[in-house]
């Protein structure tokens, strides 16, 4: 039993911290929120050169061959500075399922490009219902000779406007259960009939509406088995949830450090406000929640890396905890800063907004608590 990062992971963390502090200042984050593309191609190229996009892919596909846990070390640092761009969609939402379920040909075609930063990819999952359930998948794929024809609208698709490929969760059949008949299709984003529109969001992150009108996709682009895609989706959701947890944990640590520094320096009634227990205890509460988040996220990431049978439950435990934690910590950070913290110019607001987005992403606390309840009672609801 050894619950600590190993030497390489500590080095990865330190170098990521140093690199991002220099290369991803808040000025860039704010600029990209307003920018149409939403990411800096220069920074994207540098991340690729560092090997981050290839971190979790085997060397034979141009990757680095590290573990999912190693990836979360980097994600934590990215979340700490709020790196804008399609990193998680490309690596976690698209790259990982392609590696896990793709044919040899699909892997050879896409993963080297993902690993070297030349391919941007994303996942089109949610629809109008906004629900993470198989029953909410209604965009249809109908057989047409050797092709599928997709019709319908996907919502909240991250970075679809700059993506080269969209991994699309569609319905190709109706089984006894809603899980049957769900299929994953790899869609070239430039295919005729795809219309993408960027939605205006809380954080300036680029979530898109993607409308498919008579879009022809070759049968060979099915990821996994026709009608059996839901299993893959579940694995994507577990990994995405844990990736989001790492991101949140990094951001929360920035807030905690920034807030504690402020409480040490800001004077009121002739003394630092951190010497008032009303403030000090709020900071202590933040520290408790953050320590919990670091612990449970690292465990969940380890469980995914090891294919541990508890991985899925651990992902839900972690996401439920971190979703609430990030919101609390961001809110407390603003509170301790007072009016300063509420300004547009103070960076805290970027984190407060991201906390809400992160809570929503891949299932909020309520969603994951229900999953945990089903797991421990052995009964669905």
């Amino acid at each position, binding site marked *: *039993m*050894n*619950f*600590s*990062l*190993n030497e390489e*992971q500590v080095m990865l963390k330190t170098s990521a911290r140093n690199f991002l502090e220099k290369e991803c200042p808040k000025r860039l984050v704010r600029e990209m929120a307003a920018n149409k593309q939403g990411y800096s191609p220069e920074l994207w190229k540098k991340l690729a050169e560092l090997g981050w996009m290839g971190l979790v892919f085997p060397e034979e596909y141009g990757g680095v061959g590290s573990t999912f*846990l190693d990836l979360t070390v980097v994600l934590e640092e990215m979340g700490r500075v709020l790196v804008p761009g399609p990193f998680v969609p490309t690596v976690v939402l698209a790259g990982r399922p392609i590696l896990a379920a793709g044919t040899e040909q699909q892997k050879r075609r896409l993963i080297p490009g993902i690993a070297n930063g030349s391919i941007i990819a994303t996942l089109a999952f949610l629809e109008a219902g906004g629900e993470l359930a198989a029953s909410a998948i209604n965009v249809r794929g109908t057989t047409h000779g050797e092709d599928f024809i997709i019709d319908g609208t996907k919502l909240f698709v991250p970075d679809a406007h700059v993506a080269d490929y969209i991994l699309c969760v569609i319905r190709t059949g109706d089984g006894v259960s809603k899980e049957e008949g769900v299929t994953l299709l790899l869609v070239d984003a430039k295919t005729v009939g795809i219309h993408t529109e960027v939605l205006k969001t809380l954080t300036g992150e680029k979530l898109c509406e993607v409308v498919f009108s008579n879009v022809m996709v070759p049968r060979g682009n099915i990821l996994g088995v026709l009608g059996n895609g839901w299993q893959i989706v579940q694995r994507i959701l577990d990994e995405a949830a844990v990736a989001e947890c790492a991101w949140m944990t990094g951001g929360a640590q920035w807030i*905690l450090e920034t807030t*504690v520094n402020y*409480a*040490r320096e800001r004077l009121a009634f002739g*003394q*630092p406000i*951190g*010497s*008032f*227990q009303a403030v*000090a*205890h709020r*900071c*202590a*509460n933040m*520290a*408790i929640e953050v*320590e*919990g988040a*670091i*612990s*449970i996220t*690292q*465990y969940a990431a*380890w469980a995914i890396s090891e294919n541990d049978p508890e991985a899925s439950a*651990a992902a839900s*435990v972690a996401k*439920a*905890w971190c979703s609430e934690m990030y919101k609390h910590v961001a809110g407390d950070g603003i509170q301790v800063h007072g009016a300063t913290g509420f300004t547009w110019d103070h960076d805290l607001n970027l984190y407060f907004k991201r906390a809400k987005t992160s809570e929503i992403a891949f299932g909020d606390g*309520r969603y994951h*608590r*229900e*999953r*945990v*309840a089903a797991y*421990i*009672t052995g*009964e669905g*609801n």
Partner: protein
Amino acid sequence: MDFNYSPQEEAFRREVRGWLAENMRELPPWWGRPDVPGPDVDSDEYRHFSFWWHRKLYDAGFVGIAWPKEYGGRGATLIEQALFNEELARHRAPGPVNVIGIGWAGPTIIAAGTEEQKKRFLPKILSAEEIWAQAFSEPGAGSDLAGIQTRAVEDGDDFVVNGQKWPTGAAERADWAILLVRTDPDAPRHRGISYLLLDMHAPGVTVRPFRWMDGDSSNCEVFLDNVRIPKTMLVGKKNLGFYVAMGTLEFERSQLGATVGRENIINDLIRTMKRTERDGQPLSQDPVLRQELAQHWIETKVMKYMGLRMLTSQLKGEATGPKANLGFVMAGESIQRLQDFAIRIIGPYGQLARGSKHAVDNGRWLRSYLTSRGVPTIGGGPVEIKRNIIAMRVLGLPRSY
């Protein structure tokens, strides 16, 4: 990072499991069975039972697992200690007695005591031949321990002690107590306190038991009237006892057994929820209660991994004292919410006490609901003090007092 245990540690776990499977058969029929009438926890019968079980644990080498062999311990690591606590809780087996001796007095003597004190006291702490109490706080000084008034004056080879200690744990049945006294009233408050080992049978020691609100009547108040304590019973340096005591408080930090204890409570509640119907459906299907139930499980898991992270730091020899408070505050407040949830699950039966007709699990839930208001958030330093320590010593915020 690796959550697997080494072959040696797994072998130890198997040994514990095998031993428990074998020996738990000898437990009395009422153990762990609320439906079978058994003795009150404060009764002599219960006391004999717990000493009998302690002796079995001791003979099997399961008391003082991480203590050095030369003082009667097993000489294993904190991991084995944590694994043992985990297995004990998982099997719902009784634990050892002499909790203050094993958890507080012993580790302090190991860390700061003289060789003579170690030889004299440690073996009998583990065997429970001598039971220990803790006499730190006073009616006028609890959270602010440096404010104690009990005085010790040097007289030849002895300290002569006068004062009052409260609450002291089960002092009525204790043979010895760890004691904080003021030896220099003119020094700054923290630097005039000494740490002594008090013979509870010495002349001038009077013990008066009182009851906590949960009905536990084993706790005591201790009056010290010209009690002579030999200077050989001083632990650490004179006037620096406050720092010796702070060291003692820092030993109490593995929570793995407690985590499994929480899992047991939640699993018991799930069983109750499945067989309790309200509005025509089992409570386990109620979407609101499911949310709350899951939250308790989530907190349990989060605490488990916080605890393992702390244990790893401790094994690496890092100073984890202040940091351990992160988990302690959370655990203390969390168990109160869990016990409150339990009473709401059993509904109106939640108010029925032990021995009452219709009481669920013979009033177990009511008792633990009340008990959770004491030790978890007050004992060993209230959560307010723990938050102060987190603020000052983990986060580096300025002192508030």
